[in-house]
């Protein structure tokens, strides 16, 4: 193993944390949907890709800065997620887990390949003048878009936390997550809560997409790179745990960054998958202890 000077390692850790926060945001949507609907949403990655294309179109066609595009895209993707759960996943799954697995897989195949048919496999990116800017933090140089991503991810997590704790909708969501029959008996519309939760999870993706775009690229398969990472985070943080998702995101960000540094780019992804398999095999309840 090569030896790197401490500044380089520190910078890798810092960059890992910055990327990790956005990973955490992607995982947040996934874990929320799992916690409430008890389903693993295989379409999560494809929906992220869709959101990234939406942000790219907003920039290319309307000249909208990706950070500004957050404002229109969040309600649009909330509505999209709501509709998808209400009209596709809900009716098609008929309450069976294996069906949900297959329906969300089908959805991801459709979305990914529809985007391939429309945008072809070219890699697209946005040109914004702050993309290359760096912020000096002591001896480290941190990329500006990543620092913004880090900050906004935490803001979104905080908003979500308040929403779940303080509002009636949040209480309803938590009630359904704990005991769906009981919640239905006291008059909560479970189908509506499911769809709202799915909508929130999809809205998280819209934010993540807008944060990623200035420093990243988009192609029809880009979501796949994130989805396994997001699954890893969700499993690591405990399925359904919101703080677990964020913490797990930071951990995975650092792991990826360090294994990229020591093993090179092509083998760097391996660290994540190995962690994923190990956690699934030996501690499927996650490190932060939510119930199985």
């Amino acid at each position: 193993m090569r030896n790197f000077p401490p500044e380089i390692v520190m910078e890798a850790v810092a960059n890992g944390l910055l990327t990790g926060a956005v990973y955490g945001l992607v995982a947040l949507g996934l874990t929320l949907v799992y916690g409430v609907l008890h389903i693993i949403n295989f379409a999560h990655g494809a929906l992220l890709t869709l959101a990234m294309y939406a942000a790219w179109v907003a920039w290319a066609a309307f000249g909208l800065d990706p950070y500004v595009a957050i404002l229109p895209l969040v309600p649009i993707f909330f509505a999209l997620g709501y509709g998808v759960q209400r009209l596709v996943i809900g009716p098609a799954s008929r309450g069976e887990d294996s069906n949900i697995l297959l329906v969300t897989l089908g959805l991801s195949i459709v979305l990914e390949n529809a985007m391939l048919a429309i945008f072809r496999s070219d890699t697209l990116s946005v040109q914004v003048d702050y993309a290359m800017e760096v912020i000096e933090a002591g001896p480290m140089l941190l990329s500006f878009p990543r620092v913004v991503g880090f900050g906004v991810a935490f803001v979104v997590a905080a908003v979500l936390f308040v929403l779940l704790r303080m509002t009636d909708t949040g209480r309803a969501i938590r009630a359904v997550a704990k005991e769906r029959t009981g919640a239905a008996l006291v008059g909560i519309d479970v189908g509506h809560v499911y769809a709202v939760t799915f909508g929130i999870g999809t809205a998280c993706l819209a934010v993540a997409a807008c944060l990623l775009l200035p420093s990243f690229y988009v192609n029809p398969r880009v979501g796949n790179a994130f989805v396994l990472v997001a699954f890893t985070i969700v499993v690591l943080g405990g399925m359904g745990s919101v703080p677990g998702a964020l913490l797990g995101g930071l951990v995975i960000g650092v792991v990826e960054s360090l294994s990229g540094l020591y093993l090179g780019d092509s083998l760097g992804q391996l660290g994540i998958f190995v962690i994923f398999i190990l956690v699934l095999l030996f501690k499927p309840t996650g490190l932060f202890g939510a119930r199985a």
Partner: protein
Amino acid sequence: MTARDVLPILLFGAVAALLPVFVTAGTLLNFAIFTLILCLAAQGWNILGGFGGQYSFGHAAFFGTGAYATAVLQVRYGVNPYVTFLAGIALASVVGWVIGFLSFRSGLRGSYFALVTLAFAEVFRVLSNAVPFTGGAAGLLIPLNQRAANFQFESRGWFYLLVLALVVVALLLTRALERSRLGAQLVAVRENEDAARAVGVDALRVKLSAITLSAAMTGAAGGLYAQYFLYLDSTIAYGTWISVEALLAPIIGGAGTVFGPVIGAVILHTLAEATRMMVGRIPGIDLVIYGVLLILVVRFPPRNLLPWLRGRR
């Protein structure tokens, strides 16, 4: 097994074997060979997923292992391709057993099992893309040497018959499994694992047998793919496309039935070809149709549509 169990399979084989007599067009035989290879991969998935109810999202791990073993051993060590093909099947079943042992021992079911198989396939993909032994990112080319002794045939018809024979063997094996004690136990585990255990079924052993056989069949498909197309890279061998193909065909044709994967694979690929003819070569359009079909089949299960295919019940 009775004559009624075996006859439809032999009949299918006999009718399908006539194809090269009537069809000499290369593209059509090409299409048929590719579809048959996928039938084999899908039958592998069907044994574990259809009969055993363990939905794998990572059958690429077995397909790729069969394919790479077949290719690497002959290219690097000059071993006879028929031997490397068998070695590929053996290695794929070992990989299947190990993945099964690790995940079933840890009690992974449902979505968790789907996720862990997906992750294993991805690990193999990243590894085979990175190490020079498998040709790395550039891929691996099997030198052209068209002799029957070399598992390469001058006419596509012979390769077609060979693949068809293997598909018939797989169908017979699946039928034998369905009628065996192991098959009954496997279905019991699918329907209710706890109840099956309670009546004395060794669920771990049953699931391990299923995944080993399943991996062997899908590995054989991988080996045939390598031998037919004579080229491999990490996204062909271990890519998600084959995991999806292997899963879609049985689900659409009827999971847990002997002919389901064959029907599914033929439907899917005929549809894909038909779309290509109608709208031209738009990338991804065939998979959009696959996805829509998958959602529709889950939404409206065609159980009442093809009852006679489910055998005597």
